């Protein structure tokens, strides 16, 4: 049940999504990845991809234009 973070601040689409996809392969089932983003389109496509994969996803707006996408790997 480890927690990982991925700092994607200052990165534009599709880099956050590509990095998230890659990072998720390193996680074990039950692990959590927190992706920090400040690009609003990544706030749409990262959760969309993760949900499509069947993972649990939560989005938190931490500040103006800053989000944390919390992804729990379920399979």
């Amino acid at each position: 049940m480890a927690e990982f973070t991925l700092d994607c601040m200052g990165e534009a689409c599709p880099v956050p999504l590509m990095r998230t996809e890659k990072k998720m392969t390193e996680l074990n089932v039950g692990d959590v990845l927190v992706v920090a983003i400040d690009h609003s389109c990544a706030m749409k496509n990262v959760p969309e991809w993760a949900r499509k994969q069947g993972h649990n996803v939560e989005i938190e707006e931490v500040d103006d234009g800053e989000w944390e996408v919390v992804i729990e790997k379920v399979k």
Partner: protein
Amino acid sequence: MKETVNEFWLKISSNRFYKRLLKEPFTYVTGAVLLAVFATAHLAVFSKGWGVTSAFADWGAWLYRLAGGNVDQWAYFSSEKAQKTLSSGFLNDGGSIRNLGIILGALAATLFASEFKLKKIKSKKQVVAAVLGGLLMGYGARLANGCNIGALFTAIASLSLSGWIFGLFLLVGAFIGSKLLAKFFM
């Protein structure tokens, strides 16, 4: 007093109309319908399809003039129409005003959603890629006589075959671009 003000903003930010219209992104379908309506309105009002990048070429010419250059002999600006646009200036050019509107509108939208942020530059690599990418896009848009709006969206909507051909090569470019992106930014 401060607390009432805070309460006021909290109330607005949890209002469902605020959320639906200003905070949350529109769905793809809503976006597509709005684009179709505005593109049709553009054609009806101005008798001209919507485009973006040709005005940027004029911005470049004006900047070049400010720096003391002269584009009068350039083939691209040689037509009477191009010369007229350049001589009547920024404020008399509808395309320039429309582009300014896109930029100001985007700024307003991000302010309304309370999502405005000055982003930090992460690396020199990012700067190089942004500058190179911008130059390639601008140059490519002039060679193709339009960008993904003028040469793709408007062309396809006008039932022109050129839009589909542009789209095909846009995919080729996006494929190569994504390979480069994976190589240099992953």
